[in-house]
């Protein structure tokens, strides 16, 4: 994870498009300016970044399902629960399940596990729209390769 760049997903560890599931790994960094403020003397991963991590995980499932032809943008978060602190250096496993692929929107259920227990969960919805420009699409293709989206899904 590179928190300052909103790179929350390190690697896709399992992708099952027919089964509508994805699992990714994310290693919380030992050091980050984020921890200087959140909180002094008690560094923990902010809950909003846990939500962002689930949103990006589900986003990769939506992107892969649509073969990167459209871009999911976060629109709604429901039933978000932060169940435990996540400290610097923690390893996280994030799973997302595609609950519904609508027309122009998608719904996923996300969970984060760390240290053998569930630490966060949320229901997340996206607006799924054409890429607004080529710059973003190219950047998403580069990132898709970095996180391990299978190459055959990257060519429409």
């Amino acid at each position: 994870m590179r928190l300052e760049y909103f790179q929350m997903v390190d690697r896709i560890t399992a992708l099952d498009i027919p089964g509508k599931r994805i699992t990714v790994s994310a290693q919380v960094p030992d050091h980050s300016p984020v921890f200087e403020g959140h909180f002094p003397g008690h560094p923990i991963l902010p809950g909003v970044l846990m939500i962002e991590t689930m949103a990006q995980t589900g986003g990769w499932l939506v992107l892969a399902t649509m073969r990167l032809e459209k871009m999911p943008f976060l629109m709604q978060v429901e039933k978000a629960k932060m169940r435990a602190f996540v400290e610097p250096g923690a390893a996280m496993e994030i799973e997302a399940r595609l609950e519904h692929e609508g027309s122009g929107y998608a719904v996923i259920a996300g969970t984060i596990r760390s240290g053998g227990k569930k630490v966060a969960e949320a229901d997340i919805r996206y607006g799924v729209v054409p890429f607004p420009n080529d710059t973003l699409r190219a950047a998403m293709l580069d990132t898709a390769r970095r996180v391990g989206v299978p190459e055959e899904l990257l060519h429409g």
Partner: protein
Amino acid sequence: MASTYETVAGIISDTCDIELDKITPDSHAINDLGIDSLDFLDVAFAIDKAFGIKMPLEQWTQEVNEGKVTTDEYFVLKNLCANIDKLVAAKAA
């Protein structure tokens, strides 16, 4: 079993916090009921789930943007319900 209209009106009432007696078959979801795009996403998701369909919102939006139909075709509730019935029938066929 509830009619399509009763189900849709119930979804809109629950999702958008609008009293049921303010909703009629002639209500326009946007112009009369004031449902915004984010709330309509909730309504669409609930309708898709309730009827086991996928409303083609992108296609409908395109038709409106191209001037082929007015928003009344998809947002006046009696018309929306007729379109839902067609999607349900097409799925069953």
